[in-house]
């Protein structure tokens, strides 16, 4: 079985994001970039399926500018076998939206014929939480989003999902789409020997036009603004003062 793992280059989750003064977006210049944390979990799950003898090959895919090769190398260092970059120019990469990415990934799936595609449930930059579901729709495949447990057997996947009320377990027919939640696994660290090995693993480059996909954006960002700032309040000395403030000043109890 082949597993495809799409990954995204995002601002590192430890970076405090700053809105640009002209409100055209957030500051990306000189900012540390990383593999989207949910996608790291997706790569780890694919690699574990391979280590368990269920998957034969794990292929990492990213859509975006040439620099996304860095994140694909990270995926390779974590254990993916090969990588595909669907390369756009830098300007296109900035306006690449979930629907366009889902269409690119569908074209890659048509070529690669994976049995399972594992994606992060959302990217921590635009927080959209869409690509996996959209890809499932375009392929006509079942989807199991927000997964905290995945097991594969007999042409089916059994997936436990984190939902608002608790947990839900679905049985879905393969080929299928799974999106990862935080507690699916704890990704390993890439070791130095594996980082070195990753440099020699194959990476194919495709262009959106070769895949016949129109990646024009459907949404225009008019502005990006700072949210209203919350002012730090006061420190209270003890429980008695806290209760008094909540009763008399805030009037919430």
């Amino acid at each position, binding site marked *: 079985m082949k597993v495809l793992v799409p990954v995204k280059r995002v601002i590192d*989750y430890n970076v*405090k*994001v700053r*809105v640009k003064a002209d409100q055209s977006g*957030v500051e990306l210049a000189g900012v540390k970039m990383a593999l989207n944390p949910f996608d790291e979990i997706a790569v780890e799950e694919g690699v574990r399926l391979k280590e368990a003898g269920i998957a034969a090959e794990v292929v990492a895919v990213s859509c975006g500018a040439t620099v996304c090769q860095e994140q694909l190398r990270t995926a390779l260092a974590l254990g993916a076998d090969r990588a595909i970059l669907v390369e756009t120019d830098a300007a296109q990469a900035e306006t690449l939206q*979930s*629907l366009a990415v889902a269409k690119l990934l569908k074209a890659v799936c048509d070529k690669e014929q994976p049995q399972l595609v594992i994606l992060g449930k*959302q990217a*921590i*930059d*635009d*927080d*959209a*939480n*869409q690509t*996996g*579901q*959209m890809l*499932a*729709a375009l392929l006509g495949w*079942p*989807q*199991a*989003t*927000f997964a905290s447990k995945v097991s594969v057997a007999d042409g089916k996947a059994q997936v436990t999902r984190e*939902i*608002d*009320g*608790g*947990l*839900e*377990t*679905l*049985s*879905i*027919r393969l080929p299928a789409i799974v999106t990862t*939640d*935080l507690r699916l696994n704890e990704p390993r660290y890439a070791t130095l020997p594996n980082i070195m090995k990753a440099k020699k693993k194959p990476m194919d480059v495709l262009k959106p036009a070769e895949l016949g996909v129109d990646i024009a954006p*459907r*949404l*225009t960002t*008019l502005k*990006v*603004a*700072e*949210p209203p700032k*919350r002012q*730090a*309040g*006061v*420190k*209270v000395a003890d*429980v008695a003062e*806290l*209760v008094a*403030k*909540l009763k008399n000043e*805030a009037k*919430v*109890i």
Partner: protein
Amino acid sequence: MAILVIAEHDNAALKAATLNTVAAAGKVGGEVHVLVAGSGCAAAAQAAAQLAGVAKVKLAEAPHYADQTAENLAALVVANASGYTHILAPATTFGKNLLPRVAALLDVAQISEICGVESPDTFVRPIYAGNALATVKSSDPVKVITVRTTAFDACGQGNAAPVEAIAACPDLGLTQLVGRELTKSERPELGAAKVIVSGGRGLASGENYHKLLEPLADKLNAALGASRAAVDAGFVPNDYQVGQTGKVVAPQLYLAIGISGAIQHLAGMKDSKVIVAINKDPDAPIFAVADYGLVGDLFQIVPELTAAL
């Protein structure tokens, strides 16, 4: 303009998030219809008919809608999408699972978790864990939108809109529900609670979490929440998690106990009216958003607070 709101329900009753979504639809403007798809869900449809601003309820009943799986529901929504300029659902795990699938089938973008309506085609939504607000304009003929429920007050009730039965689509047979483990609680629902008592890693164990926070929550008639650290450590189940990737809440009072305040957690609670932080570390980032901070040992402070209420 006509707007279709996808109701979230458990067949027996409407979920509160549907009321906020209908309110958001009202802000967009236009005739609002609500789709209730399920099995044995006539009561939920009647409840939807009572929501203020709703002109019509469409009821689709079939056994394969009972479990609310995205594949069958998306096909039904798309089959009934004609004539609508907007399709809305709450940005809950239900809506987030369903609407991107609907949007892709309609070949339109999906706009996630809006917190404001600027005009019928322009919306405000948080990005980067709420550290920035993006205003986005859609050029698609149909706007498919999930709604951040805490950003819109629930719609009123007392209406009596007609309920129209519509045909079900065939079962796609792609997905089967094996089972659900739903957290049972007598407490208010986290997303709709007026007061939330939330605990983090500082509680050190699940046993401490329950021993210290439950009596406090009982006194305040509060829902219980948690930071990711507390959920990852197994103190409480996943559905307690408040944050960027968990639930977004905005109660009247949020008590953060033993929570340091990572930006991912702040993203889920910083719109609360009043925030109280109790933490032993005076430099914890949670104090930067708290209205009232109390530095000290939570094991001593929390029982004292419970006793004082």
